[in-house]
């Protein structure tokens, strides 16, 4: 059983749309079992799903895990709460405001500007470049930025 080394391997597979974070940090690797890597899609229609599966296949094959299958599991549905703390930091450093934790929504849901840290920001568009992001703007440094939506 090589679960440990497979997890390490997968932690080096980048998300195709946000390549600074790995698919493990994004929380879409649900399990590594005896014979399979279990992935879950972020959104049902996310076109990156196929790219991710083929990147995982390539990584597994390269490391000699040709007999490990890839299975897809949609339930329980993916939530942004599964994005790890490291993942959130990497998103912020990359210029994407990370999603708030869903149990934390009572307070402010205004994301801080990932460039200057100001919380003086406004939403420009509820939908952004990908289904998981919205477009925001900082009212202090005037930079637009992506905000990873709570889902």
């Amino acid at each position: 059983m090589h679960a440990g080394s497979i997890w390490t391997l997968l932690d080096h597979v980048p998300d195709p749309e946000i390549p600074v974070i790995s698919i493990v940090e994004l929380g879409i690797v649900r399990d590594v079992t005896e014979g399979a890597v279990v992935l879950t899609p972020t959104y049902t229609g996310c076109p990156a799903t196929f790219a991710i599966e083929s990147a995982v296949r390539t990584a597994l094959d390269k490391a000699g895990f040709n007999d490990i299958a890839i299975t897809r599991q949609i339930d329980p549905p993916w939530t942004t709460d599964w994005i790890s703390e490291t993942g959130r930091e990497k998103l912020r450093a990359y210029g994407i405001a990370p999603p708030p934790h869903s149990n934390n929504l009572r307070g402010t849901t205004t994301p801080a500007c990932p460039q200057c840290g100001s919380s003086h920001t406004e939403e420009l568009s509820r939908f952004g470049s990908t289904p998981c992001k919205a477009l925001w703007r900082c009212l202090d440094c005037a930079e637009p930025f992506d905000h990873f939506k709570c889902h």
Partner: protein
Amino acid sequence: MGADRKDIARYAISLGDDSLILGQRLGEWCGHAPTLEIDLFLANIALDLIGQATLLLDYAGTLEGEGRDGDKLAFHRDVLDFTNCLLVEQPNGDFGRTIARQFLFSNFQLLLFQALSNSTDATIAGIARKAAKEVAYHARVASEWMVRLGDGTEESAQRVAEGLDWSWRFVDELFEAPDAKLIEAGVAVDPASFRPAFDAAIDAVLRDACLARPADRRATVGGRRGHHSEHLGHLLSQMQFLQRTYPDARW
């Protein structure tokens, strides 16, 4: 008499067809919507709907066991074999009509998927739980747009009222009961059970939007039995063009 796999497959196809056809319709807006924000909104909803359709139709294909998958079901059936509701195949019209249709459908679909999250069929329940999270977002944004247009300018209010009026005759069909065997087995839900919740949600938004609830009229039905408006054939001729011209072409 219990529900068999064929019955469940038929149900999954009707759910999948709703999502597929509306997803295709919304795709027609891509690059044409009035602002970038709404263009992205409509395209993203379309993407979610096509994702739902893929899950539901793939599952139906597995249940049938006749070698059809989601793609086969989407691209190799003719108009009479589609069992989507009539609302989703209606032409986009202007932006007001598109938003009114989305508002009605997403509010319906949200309640449907929330109820189906407890389906005794584990796959349908799983798909419904996943999709309900996305549809909640569709319903919220469509409702916000109803208010923006209804409580906007004189022209936007008039246009969205016309769109609502056009779409209204297709609402009752959404609440037609599916196969009684499936309801009894707990696989399907009878949408009549959440009609009061639907009406309350719609009325609350219409109040905020300063729009009147259209008068009830004789419902237009038939989609679930394959009796469609002329619009569906035109939609399919575009959606299925490639597979009809080059059967079984692959990327």
